[in-house]
């Protein structure tokens, strides 16, 4: 799980071009959208696309999106439980 959190942070930084942010700057439990990082609804859509491409996770409604994108931790949990890689990971744990 810790590895997945680091991986997701890297992918968020890369996908959203947050080049002035380091992994340490991102608190995994802090509010992800509308928080200090200045992320908004377009960033959510960009992340939805990335998650589907990289992890096979589909997030196609707002209600689910609000839950999943609450923090990096909640995002990691969702990917872990629902993603293709998540399944693979679950089997190997």
């Amino acid at each position, binding site marked *: 799980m810790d590895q997945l959190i680091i991986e997701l942070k890297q992918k968020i930084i890369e996908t*959203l*071009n*947050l*080049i*002035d942010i380091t992994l340490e700057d991102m608190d995994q439990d802090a509010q992800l959208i509308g928080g200090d990082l*200045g992320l908004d*609804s*377009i*960033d959510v*859509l*960009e992340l*939805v*696309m990335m998650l*589907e*491409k990289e992890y096979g996770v589909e997030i*196609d409604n707002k209600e689910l999106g609000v839950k999943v994108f609450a923090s990096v931790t909640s995002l990691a949990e969702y990917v872990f439980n629902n993603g293709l890689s998540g399944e693979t990971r679950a089997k190997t744990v």
Partner: protein
Amino acid sequence: MHRLRVFITSMGIIGPVGQGIGETIDSVQKSTAAIKPLHLFPASHIPPLPVGQITAVPWATDMPRTHTLALMASRDAMKDTCEAPDAVVIGTTTGGISLTEELLKSQIQDVRRYALHSAGSVAEYIARHVGCNGPVLTVSTACSSGNTALKIALEMLRSGKVNRVLAGGADSLCRLTYYGFDSLQLVDVKGARPFDFNRRGMSVGEGAAMFLLTAAETPPENAIAELLGGGLSCDAYHPAAPHPQGDGALCAMQKAIADAGISPDEIGYIHLHGTGTVDNDLTEARAIRSLFGDLPVPPCSSTKGAYGHTMAASGAMGTVMSIFGVTRGILPGNTGLHDPDPALPLTPISVPTQPEAPVRFALSNAFGFGGNNAVLVIGHPTRSKNTGTTVAATPPVFFSVLGSACLGGAGDIKCIIERMAQDEPFAGTVPPAEFTRYLSERHARRMKRLTRMTLSLAIAACGEKEATDSPVSVFFGTGWGGLSETHDFLEKLFESDERFTSPTDFIGSVHNASAGHVAIHFKAGGPNVTTTGGNCSFEQALMSADLLAGRDRDPLLVVGADEYHPTLSPLFDPSVAISETPSDGGGALYLGPETTPSACRIRTACLDYAGTDEQDIPNRIGHLVEQLGGVQRIRDQFGTILVGIPAFHRDIGQRQLDAFLSASGYPRRIIDYRRYTGEFASASAVAAVLAVSFVKADEVPGTHPRYPTPLGGCGVLILGFGDYITAMEVLP
């Protein structure tokens, strides 16, 4: 002095519910719904998303679809006349992208195949077909483009300089819009249901509507309707989402009503923008509620549930619907509306309705990305009390230049002038450090090259005055728009077998995205117009500024910029393809009314679509000289001439220049500025800023064996030759 009114004397329309006025009105009366799963090109969705497509026009791989649709509507609009219009103004966002996508997918490298890629090529194609040699303008303000084009045409006619204008909007289905809106989760998989409680988004569509507009003191016999007024505004709030209370939409409606000289209680019908997205319909409903206050809201409807969101054509097609309401007593139904949304402060009419009393005036709403809003007022040709706009023979209107900035391969204006003083070119691509002077990485993280350049130029041009006298309106000329975003969007799409894209790149790929960022930065709520007319995009922006903000008291920005993209620029721009040095850059002018004291002033004197007919050169040059006030004025007023001839048009451009020199006998220095700037569409924006700098310094940098460097209190003329003949004057 006389008073002019503007009438629609004929119109043409093609859309998913029919071709021509007859078929369209028949469909409207029957509430025909034409939203079906996409079949024009193979899509990765199973089943394909529902769209509004024109099945009668087959998908072609040799001609862009937008051009075909625009031509079909234009032919209808011109069917009763063989006289060429004096000007053509077309709103489009997709241009030739439908064909470009096919070519890029097949990795075609032949530049000639991309000749109709640009947004500007649609209006040029139409101009060639109808034989127009006057101003040809292309407006790309996303989904408000069609109505914005009509507002510009209205002002051209009111100015008294032209009598007949062919204007409207056109856009075709393409992968960019089909996948782009889906990536934003703005597409309703059940088809658009505007204003319905269960609405989930839009259906992407295609179409074209064109109008022949005529200026006259009294209604001509063939007048169908009167175009009474138009209002433009910008939300200056978000690149893709509307202002939550609909403030920008309200402002555009209020301006349109004021421009028409009517009051809200006289409006009998509103054709709504009504895309079917949760946010658009809510904010539009709120704006309309605020517009009417305690008054009842008149019958209103959106037809996007019948034929989808036809992008740049949507406003123009909605204007046709408004005309049906005013002249035929048919108010279209809001197809797709079954369960009215109690959260909305208005309920559109769900079925076609005959109004209780004749509709005297109707509104046509169109809103788009970049927070662009354009609203028109349509009236019955003889039921209106309109007395027209006074046209008087006044001297040409100039803008005062309050600030300026430019960027080129050498860097900013200071570096550029230093190079010119050494008679060295400054071609090349703008060093990225020029952008970081004005934009932090965080601020610019979603901006790619063109937007970074445009916003940097705008901030630099305003300088310290930004704090006290911020620009209210923004005019932006770009030949090619955000090429980085267009490229990255399509690359990601094709690499993933059309499964993945970037929503951010989609928003950034819209030609007016950069101008939207400028508006957000300056909170500029006035007109926000992007023109995309190839090598004279900047001149088109300056002309639009003159037409739309020339009588305002507020300061404004006119910017021109283009980026060099290593893959797309050499494919799209034939002048770039044959040039050795990849180059880009742009210029920005911060302007005020002529009465504001400043060191110099600027105006566009000529913007003629010349085509490439060599036989016609004497006529075209004669017109240019006339527009500049004659040979004597040219010799007296201008200390030097900056001439821009795009490399691809070198031969004809040189002949045009020779003809001009022979006609005017101009005795002083001619500077061939593209030899300094390098080849890019908005090089003339750099030339304009150079001219400002020369006039301020009262000298031309560098030494020349034959000509003195001082301007001696004279101005600088900037001429453009090639497929357009343009002139801008900068005078002290």
